[in-house]
């Protein structure tokens, strides 16, 4: 309890890191809802990895064309951002386009993207010894390095994502649940799919830069999977996913602070523990309903 009070204190030293954690924890699940419903869970693994490859690539380009990058420099952050967005959006839009033609197994394609992105990330890092340690930090997701300005930028971008998700919720739901009906109604299904994918890409690339691929993947999936177990309506599903994400991010942050644990893994561990607990409780409840004492 004392840890919670300390963390919530106005002058808390790591306030920006905590707020960044909660932002990622709230917004990633709102996008993750569609990953779960559209059965694109593997994309939730592959895209953060692709985003990481984009970061490593952009910094390699920076070193090759401009020269050695400064640790924590503004140009580094800018390049990393551009690389993450370009690779993630490129990846998700290409996969979406291939899905429409769909001859091979979708999972196989996404698995290949993950393998290639993972290999490229390591190769790009190996080719850039100047900034290896710094890049590794970026790829781990340096939540503790969040500053007031980076936090404001993150909040603004993720805020726009949330507003667009809310504004076009009925279009995203219709193309996700019954694409044929959307076509019959004359809706621009390809456009809505693309807008949704772009929102996913932006959220993932900013999530990876702020918190790393592991945390982004964890928050894309664990909170929606937990919420799906306890909600029966679309609206409550989205709200519960975001609430679980935000809450587990906060609890994970407190645990990491209290026990001096690495922040990202602590948050993912808490989020996963909540999922396992809820899954266990719902199974138990179902079993009791079937076989009352």
């Amino acid at each position, binding site marked *: 309890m004392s840890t919670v009070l300390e963390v919530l204190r106005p002058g808390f030293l790591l306030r920006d890191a905590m707020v960044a954690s909660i932002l990622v924890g709230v917004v990633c699940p709102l996008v993750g809802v569609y990953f779960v419903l559209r059965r694109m869970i593997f994309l939730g693994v592959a895209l953060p990895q692709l985003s990481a490859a984009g970061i490593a690539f952009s910094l390699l380009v920076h070193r090759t064309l401009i020269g050695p990058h400064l640790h924590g420099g503004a140009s580094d952050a800018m390049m990393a951002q551009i690389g993450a967005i370009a690779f993630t959006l490129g990846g998700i839009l290409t996969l979406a386009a291939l899905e429409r033609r769909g001859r091979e197994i979708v999972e196989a394609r996404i698995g290949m993207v993950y393998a290639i992105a993972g290999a490229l990330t390591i190769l790009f890092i190996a080719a850039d010894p100047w900034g290896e340690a710094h890049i590794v930090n970026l790829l781990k997701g340096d939540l503790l390095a969040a500053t007031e300005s980076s936090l404001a930028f993150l909040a603004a971008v993720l805020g726009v994502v949330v507003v667009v998700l809310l504004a076009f919720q009925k279009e995203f739901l219709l193309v996700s*649940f019954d694409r044929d009906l959307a076509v019959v109604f004359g809706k621009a299904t390809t456009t809505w799919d693309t807008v949704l994918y772009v929102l996913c890409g932006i959220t993932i690339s900013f999530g990876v830069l702020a918190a790393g691929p592991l945390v982004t993947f964890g928050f894309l999936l664990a909170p929606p999977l937990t919420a799906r177990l306890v909600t029966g309506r679309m609206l409550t599903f989205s709200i519960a996913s975001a609430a679980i994400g935000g809450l587990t991010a906060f609890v994970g942050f407190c645990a990491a602070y209290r026990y001096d644990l690495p922040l990202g893994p602590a948050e993912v561990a808490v989020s996963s523990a909540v999922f396992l607990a809820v899954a266990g409780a719902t199974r138990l409840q179902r079993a009791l309903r079937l076989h009352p004492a």
Partner: protein
Amino acid sequence: MCLLRLRDVSLGYGHRPVLEHVSLEIVRGEFVALLGPNGAGKTTLLRGIVGLIPLLAGALEYDLDRASSPLGYVPQRESLDPTFPLTVFEVVLMGTYARLGPLRRVGRQERALASRALDLVGLGALAGQRFASLSGGQTQRALIARALAARPEFLLLDEPTAGVDAEASAAIMAVLSRLNRDDGLTVLLVTHQLRLLHGLASAVFWVQDGRVTRRRVEDIGASAAAALGAPAGA
């Protein structure tokens, strides 16, 4: 007055035609069915009519503006993912999206429409229930309610009684009959159950061997009925 006209239409997947030289007309207020053996191309024809697959050749004309008068479409229920956490009411509400542009929120009018549509199919009491928990017959009636929430002039249904028991099939057909008779709704349904159409359908489009011919229900002969796996007159 003709509501839908197909002239020399060919339909298929890729460049491979499943149906060729299809010409047919559906008059406003008619209750008609696409009937034929399994795999004959009934669903392909319906999907072509609603615009889900492009025509390979020919022309398709509606005597209605599909933007202001959307079609009521009921897909095969297996095409919908049961993992979506949606209530019956939320699914039916989707029918109202037909007339709502982007950024226009679902309002009181749309909610009232969805409630009325649910009452029409006799599912008003199940509005708050999970859509995935409905029985086959209830699911079909909920999907009919969703189609009605679009306030259509023309209702098209793909195998609404497939995999549904006899009692539920009769309830579905009773709803469709009432909508056609009382509200003047034009109905086109895909089925391979001839017995459901007696006394309801004014005509049948018989689909077999890549061709479509218009017949009266009473004129479906023994050989055709045998192709459906049912005795003539059943």
